């Protein structure tokens, strides 16, 4: 299974414009009877990009694949988790990842992704707390100054 799923660093590396263009052309060229491999290739390329819109598009494509091809659902779980993680939907990412881990508890990419999600959520939590603390501090300073003036 380790070879079947990409590593997380691979997910962060982005394709060049021309490469993505190639994938997109292949997808469009196949028209109505597009194969699932082509769809996946294009979706994966979109998710890897740094552009948020393209990531959303990629996730939508993957969701379609998930719905339509029951055989590939388990793999799609990982990609959907990854996509939502990149978009920032940590709840969804966590849900997909947990579901994948239920099926394959020994999957080290899934474990790594889970670790990353937890780290990112914690990090954002700290930042949030810092901001709130800062805002509260600023607010109290303003209040005390106003009271003192009065």
């Amino acid at each position, binding site marked *: 299974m380790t*070879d*079947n*799923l*990409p590593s997380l660093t*691979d997910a*962060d590396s*982005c*394709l060049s*414009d021309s*490469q993505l263009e190639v*994938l997109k*052309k292949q*997808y*469009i*060229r196949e028209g109505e009877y597009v*194969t*699932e*491999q082509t769809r*996946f*290739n294009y979706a*994966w390329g979109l998710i890897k*990009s*740094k*552009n*948020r*819109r393209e990531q*959303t*598009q990629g*996730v*939508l494509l993957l*969701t*379609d694949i*998930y*719905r339509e091809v*029951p*055989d*590939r*659902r*388990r*793999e*799609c*779980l990982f990609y959907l988790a990854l996509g*939502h993680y*990149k978009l*920032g*939907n940590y*709840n*969804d990412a966590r*849900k*997909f990842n947990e579901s994948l881990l239920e099926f394959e508890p020994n999957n080290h990419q899934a474990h790594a992704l889970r670790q990353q999600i937890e780290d*990112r959520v914690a990090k*954002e*939590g*700290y*930042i*949030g*707390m810092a*901001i*709130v603390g800062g*805002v509260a501090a600023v607010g109290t300073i303003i209040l005390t100054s106003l009271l003192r003036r009065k």
Partner: protein
Amino acid sequence: MMASAGPSNPRNKQAGAQGTSSSTRPSDQTISRANAALSQTISGISATGRSISSLVSSGLAQPRHRIMELLHTFDVSGLASSARHSLTTTSSIVFSPLTVQAVKGDLTGIASLTGLSGMAPHLMASHYLKRATANAQALALTGAIQATPASADQLLSEDIPEAGARVSLFQGFKASYPGHSKGGRRSKNHQRRRKNGFGEVGEDDPNKLFSSLLSERERTIKEQVKLQTQKTVIQSELEQIAASIETLQAKQTNLGFKLSKLTEREDDLADTLGDLNDKLASISEGSKTRDGEPLQLEYRDETRDSGTCMHTFYGHDGVVTSLDLNGPYGTLVTASRDNTTRVWDLSTFKCLGQLPGHEDTVECLQLTQHTLVTGSRDNTIRTWNLADLSHNQQSRSPSPTPSDSSYSSNHINGKYMDNDGDDYSRSSRELSGSNDKTIKEWDLETGQCVLTMDLLWAMGTSNSWSDWMNETPDQSYVGGLQFWQYALCSGTIDGAIRMWDLRTGQSHRTLAGHTGPVNTLQFDDYHVVSGSVDRSVRIWDLRTGAIQEILQYEDPVRSLQFDTSKIIVGSGESLKIYDRVSQQHSYYTGHTNKVESVRFNDSLLVSGGQDSTVRLWSR
């Protein structure tokens, strides 16, 4: 996160505004999300945030004609929805440039924000514009329809089957585009190495030649592997398609079969309707109204294969001699050599009770809507009124009272009678033939015999004479009887079928041909069908008096009934069905001993046999 605010992304060259805004937006969204996680009390401001984002999306809702506009809405609604996710606090509203721009009323700013103006010329330049529009439309429409990616719970609730042992999607991706995975750098390295390799072949020492050849070999091997994985991928998809085709074909044949069954039922229905219409028309002429037969047009709902034994009634201890039914969901009366006559309810398959009264076996019976006439070996014929039989399961053995006194006649040993309501203002009649070698006509209301036809005399005048008449002990003298208005048809032990005129009481026609006693007989407007111990069923044409067809069987024919489409013959252990339209024979097996009598009515076929069972079949 990928959008670390730092070097601008080369991918965002298309729209300059997009580059900066995209780099700032994600970081703001991290902050906003953190705030959302901690402070949830400021909901009123979130409502204003939502209203602003809806204003944004509605503002752009107007231009939806061209594809570019479609992509607009896709994008903005997508952004708006993602903004909705994150917009739950004041800080996010302040920070988010999307709403800021909306507040400023700068719709064009949003258009550039999405960068579609940059995308548009790119799309236009594409060679595959037409197909691209189709696919892009699909992309955009799916985006527009599901502005928010469907919720994870919804997706997870779907069934996730075991993954087959096939090439994974990612392996397929790597195989198709080996340069695309692990970043673009390596491909450039490959290209560089390639160029170097070729450039330096002729110049340097054999070491470099060796290494370049090695690398080329590696490359071709990788190419091979890639092709193989691609092939496997395509093969697996083909298998999937083949499997789905198979299931669809199976569905198709199943439904086609059901359709043909239903059309068959429909045709039967049309026939019944026609018959009933005729009857209604004829009744409206006559002054006497008879019990309106309820339109029993209900069919059993299951479309069973014809020929399946739907139900078996056990209960008799002896050979079932005769039976009759008055409708597919009505009552069935069976008589057997165990000296009982049982009444069954066909809708519940329960025995409603027995009919007491006869002292010996009932050899023959006939049932109309509510009246039952039975003739037995005790030389009597009894009529019964079954109307007060309740079909309630809780009722215990009901006892219908014989409505009239019994009739007596001499040596009754197998009679057949027929009962026909009358068109003219005369009471109902009944005809019976008995082993006393006569056929008698009775008036059911007075209970008097109004006409006696002497068979010996009729046989004596005709030339038909046979040797077997003295041999078979159990053979009934009059095997089959049927009458209609003034025409009577009788089949007798001498193998002759006689037509009688009931006004004169004389036999005016004889159909000779059977080489054995006639056991059963039926006629309609055109044909007489008779079955006899000589193992044949003969179909006579009434107009010419000639034999139209002979059906040969392996056992003596004990009972038959026919309608316009088929003849059902009980002979031997199985029911034989002869389709008159297609002239094909078929067999219904189920009885473990010889079949004694068969009767059918609409969609239901009933047969009784020497194995003491009565079976119901679907037609």
